[in-house]
């Protein structure tokens, strides 16, 4: 308390007054400046909050839109029956099955190669030109447009290797697309395993591979699996890579071998909305299919996020 009884609020809380010996600090001025600084901080923080909110809002808008337009199409028949009457009636069962086959196929292709590559890049590779070239390759692979993947798949798998339009060709093409995602997520997971574990293991007389297999991989597994789930989600929603390599407008039966052609959810939407014979009449089915697809992808992503959070909590 100052001698004259004043007790100015310096912004440090009531009752706390600053003074420097005989020189009194100009409290009024510093309060005003403090107020302005706080206001500026509030404004900028609210701008940040708004930006973050835009993300969530955008997603909600899209989902809401699809739900309102498409929920009428969703029923048991829709999900379990093949399309009938030039696609105006019936369901999308072959599409669901086809997308599932392609996603699993892409994972079967990309997961082993991706994880093995990540292990090599992080644990074994020595700095040098070879490493830089490989990394350049992976980064560029990640940047290839999906339609280019589709054309590549057509030229290489479908025609040159004579696989025909098939699940196999589609899975290989989608696998190539998913590969950078899995390598990236796996490398990050491996990086997050502390070096102290590796040192402790080697110090006990383990070989490098034993260290990786027994300590590093189990510790990195949550991150790797999360990457795999996100990878499947990405593969499930791609249209261009499968357009030329696996998906067809209509096939009467469910696939029985990897060389069969299939229908797929994203391609089905495209087909109904542009090339089908009854575009307007099938509009509700398009939205229904889109809704199923987005529920599938969002569901996978949500599962990955929750799974990763649970594992992080356990660690």
């Amino acid at each position: 308390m100052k001698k004259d009884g004043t007790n100015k609020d310096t912004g440090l809380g009531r009752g706390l007054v600053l003074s420097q010996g005989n020189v009194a600090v100009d409290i009024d001025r510093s309060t005003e400046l403090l107020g302005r600084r706080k206001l500026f901080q509030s404004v900028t923080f609210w701008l940040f909050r708004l930006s973050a909110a835009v993300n969530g809002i955008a997603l909600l808008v899209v989902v809401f839109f699809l739900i309102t337009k498409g929920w009428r199409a969703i029923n048991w028949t829709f999900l379990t029956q093949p399309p009938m009457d030039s696609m105006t009636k019936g369901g999308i069962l072959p599409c669901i099955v086809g997308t599932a086959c392609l996603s699993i196929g892409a994972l079967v292709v990309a997961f082993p190669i991706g994880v093995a590559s990540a292990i090599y890049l992080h644990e074994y590779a020595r700095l040098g030109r070879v490493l830089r070239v490989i990394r350049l390759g992976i980064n560029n692979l990640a940047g290839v447009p999906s339609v280019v993947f589709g054309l590549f798949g057509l030229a290489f798998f479908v025609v040159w290797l004579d696989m025909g339009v098939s699940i196999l060709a589609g899975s290989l093409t989608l696998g190539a697309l998913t590969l950078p995602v899995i390598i990236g997520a796996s490398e990050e997971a491996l990086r997050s395993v502390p070096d102290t574990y590796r040192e402790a293991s080697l110090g006990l007389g383990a070989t490098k591979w034993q260290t990786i297999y027994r300590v590093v991989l189990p510790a990195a597994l949550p991150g790797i699996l999360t990457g795999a789930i996100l990878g499947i989600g990405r593969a499930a929603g791609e249209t261009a890579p499968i357009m030329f390599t696996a998906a067809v407008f209509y096939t009467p039966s469910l696939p029985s071998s990897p060389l069969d052609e299939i229908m797929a959810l994203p391609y089905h939407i495209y087909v109904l909305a542009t090339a089908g014979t009854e575009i307007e009449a099938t509009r509700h089915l398009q939205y229904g299919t889109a809704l199923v697809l987005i529920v599938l992808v969002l569901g996978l992503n949500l599962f990955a996020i929750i799974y990763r959070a649970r594992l992080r909590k356990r660690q």
Partner: protein
Amino acid sequence: MRIKDLDFFYGDFHCLHKVCLEFNANQVTALIGPSGCGKSTLLRCLNRMNDLISTSRVQGEVLLDDQNIYKPDVDVVTLRRHIGMVFQKPNPFPKSIFENVAYGLRVNGVKDKTYVQERVERSLQEAALWDEVKDRIHESALGLSGGQQQRLCIARAMAVEPAVLLMDEPASALDPIATQKIEELIHKLKETYTIIIVTHNMQQAARVSDVTAFFYLGELIEVDQTKKIFTRPSSQKTSDYITGRFG
């Protein structure tokens, strides 16, 4: 174990200069010296952990039972079984307590379940940890306190029955009570193992070791019985360091 004319380089940096040192069996040798004098580097040379650093280079010999461990035909993996290491910060694996101690046995190919069980129990007893963990031996090792984790790491190192135990500032990350337990443990362990401990805590070196070696800027300045080093050191530098003139 003996070191003969050891020079060590990190790339161009000449870290250790012509070090000659002998470690007697069943004794505790402490390596002391100010930060950056190379004592941890020297320790890591003894089990070839520095091989992990690509720019490291070694000249000279390190002899275990009169065999140079840096000969090109030496199997580093087997070597590290015979020379165990405990690190500064406790680093148990994210596995159960049992699996942590059993790890060394498993990677060296031991399959006999009863043998593994016995050895794990014996190591934990030797590390004075068995009573505290016997009821939760299959729970995660990460749930233990810092001091317990470090004793677990010691048990883990002992499970493979090394000849030499290297300890890099084993108690520096621990509270005083845990430190005391570790020091008591070292006292007990020297009956079975040859222990080489790096410490920047001079009082700890005085308490725990039989022989002390003082390093300064990569050179071995003086090595002698601990009592003598701390009461009547021969070198001026040693006495300056011990009395705290520099640190």
